[in-house]
């Protein structure tokens, strides 16, 4: 999922600063013994901190509702937020602290895939771990439960739409150079071939570098593909799409971006968002009853000044609901019992009722077109399978 651009250089500059600030873990003064403690990784620093306020607000909303309904395993839930906005190794260090000092019962992470891999290698299945955002699929490590949209859910419908409705035959792929875009594009190529199309270009930009896109856009202009599939994140995504439209390509070439949510679209801007599509399990204006109810509860709690709702953030709400359903059904924190309980488990996500299978989530997907800086859902695809089936 979202990985902060410029991270590498920022690490250098910020290293001294974070050392001075000490641990990236927020620890309230009073701790109670009889609590269900959740180590919650969100972005508190770095450019991904843009999502931090929404992540926190959504998590707090879910925790409040769960506590009103009797907590998890009969114990009140306490969230201990930790920063996942820095380098993966730093986040993994916080995970160790949360395990040893706070003795958390569960981890929830809303962060990029590189950080997930570092966390899993550190936690080593000793504590259950729910990974919530959109990702590349295929994560089957023990005691890990994934919520996010996988390529079969996200990329496949988007490519079928481009091939069918936009008559796209040739595709150009552009992404940031790290695990999520590369693994997603491996599958994108299969979907393109299955739809009778052809990938005519594939390129990656260095992750965390001050990227400019004039050369890439000129290359695309010369190759004249019918469609572009972007796995760029954050500011790179904004930059690419602005440059693309600036060169006037938005009129003739369709674009689908695989991590395009409300904040990124605001950056891209109304005059650059023509012919641009996104396929997600959640949009702030998703037409589902579940999404409407979630949004109403969110606005009722936080009012008009509430942080912008988006898929990153809404995933935190879903993750906590999964935690309650999962632990209460298993009746304990035992890894085997949790895995067994997870199979076929229904729970309420931010978009409505979904079901967990193979420790992944089957869900409804929404294909949206950009109208200015708003998403307009043009197609709802019901009950799309994750394509990843981990053994219980």
């Amino acid at each position, binding site marked *: 999922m979202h990985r902060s651009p410029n991270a590498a250089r920022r690490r250098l500059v910020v290293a001294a600063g974070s050392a001075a600030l000490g641990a990236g873990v927020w620890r309230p003064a009073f701790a109670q013994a009889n609590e269900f403690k959740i180590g919650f990784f969100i972005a508190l620093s*770095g450019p991904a901190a843009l999502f931090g306020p929404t992540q926190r607000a959504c998590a707090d909303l879910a925790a409040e509702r769960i506590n009103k309904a009797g907590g998890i395993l009969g114990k009140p839930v306490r969230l201990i937020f930790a920063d996942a906005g820095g380098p993966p190794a730093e986040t993994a260090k916080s995970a160790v602290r949360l395990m040893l000092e706070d003795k958390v019962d569960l981890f929830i992470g809303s962060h990029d895939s590189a950080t997930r891999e570092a966390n899993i290698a550190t936690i080593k299945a000793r504590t259950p771990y729910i990974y919530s955002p959109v990702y590349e699929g295929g994560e089957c490590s023990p005691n890990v439960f994934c919520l996010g949209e996988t390529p079969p859910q996200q990329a496949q419908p988007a490519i079928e739409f481009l091939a069918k409705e936009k008559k796209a035959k040739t595709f150009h792929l552009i992404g940031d150079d790290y695990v999520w875009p590369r693994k997603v594009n491996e599958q994108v190529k299969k979907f393109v071939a299955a739809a009778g199309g052809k990938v005519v270009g594939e390129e990656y930009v260095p992750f965390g*570098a*001050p990227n400019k896109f004039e*050369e890439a856009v000129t290359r695309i202009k010369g190759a004249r593909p019918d469609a572009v599939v972007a796995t760029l994140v954050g500011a790179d995504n904004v930059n690419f799409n602005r440059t693309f439209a600036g*060169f006037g390509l938005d009129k003739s070439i369709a674009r689908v971006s695989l991590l395009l949510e409300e904040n990124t679209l605001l*950056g891209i801007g109304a005059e650059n968002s023509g012919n641009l599509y996104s396929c997600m399990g959640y949009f702030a204006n998703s037409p589902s009853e579940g999404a409407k109810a979630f949004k109403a509860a969110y606005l009722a709690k936080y009012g008009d000044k509430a942080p912008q709702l988006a898929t990153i953030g809404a995933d935190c709400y879903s993750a906590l609901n999964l935690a309650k359903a999962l632990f209460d059904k298993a009746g304990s924190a035992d890894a085997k019992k949790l895995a067994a309980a997870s199979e076929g488990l229904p729970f309420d996500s931010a978009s409505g009722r979904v079901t967990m299978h193979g420790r992944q989530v089957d869900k409804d997907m929404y294909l949206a077109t950009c109208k200015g800086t708003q998403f307009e859902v043009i197609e709802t695809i019901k009950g799309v399978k994750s394509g990843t089936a981990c053994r219980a």
Partner: protein
Amino acid sequence: MDPASFVAPALNALFGIASLAIVALGLAVVLGLLGVLNLAHGELVMVGAYCAYVAQSQGWPYLAAVPLALALCALLGWSVERWLVRPLYQRPFDTLVLTWGLSLLLRKSAEAIFGLGYKSLTEPIGGTLEVLGTSYPRYRLLLIATAAVVLGALFAWYRRSRTGTRIQAMVGNPDLARALGLPVRRYASATFVAGTCLAGLAGVLIAPLVPVQPFMGLDYILMSFFVLVVGGLGSLAGLSTGSALIGGVNSAVSALSDSTGGYLSVLVIAILFLWLRPRGIHAR
């Protein structure tokens, strides 16, 4: 091959060089003439970009952002020089820590005022223009022209004007210049302010092309620093050569292979220069 197919890559290279030169200019002035490596330079570019955002969101004409950015950056530059940098001249490491702290403060201030979200600006001159058989975005062409004019004017002024000569005297030997009765302190202050104003101006120029956000400055400080490492300090010739080499190679390699190759070559060039020729091409 069709000659028109070379036009777009050439314009891309030119745009890369021009945007790099205009962004690095302020840093070059402050570092080259005063010996202060202003790590908050990128954040001053950011301040300029937010000025453009404010001007546009208020419905003012785009050019109104220029005086706004100049005034704000002049005020910032003057106060920082007067109270923070002045006691620290000749102490390069201390100024480094100082300006680094300043960059954090500016970034956090922007975050407090505008939030972390991306702000998008409309290009004041949108659309594309037909250039030798290929269409190129108008605003990028305007930026290339503006950068050339600003650099040219500054070069001519610095070479020909009396003040330019006096600043050269101050840079060459501050003690002697002071002994000759030159107001060295005032010149140093004015030079610092000029550097921060140029950073603000660069921010106004690039704002419509990039996402405006508190972290954007980090993108510019590093590339600007590379330009100065390669070109050498203290002369506009150094700035131009550095921008041409860094921007040109980045653009050419990005066009021929990909952006990773482009960025890699920039890093290799910067490392080679730091290692083998640390004073740059135009060593003073």
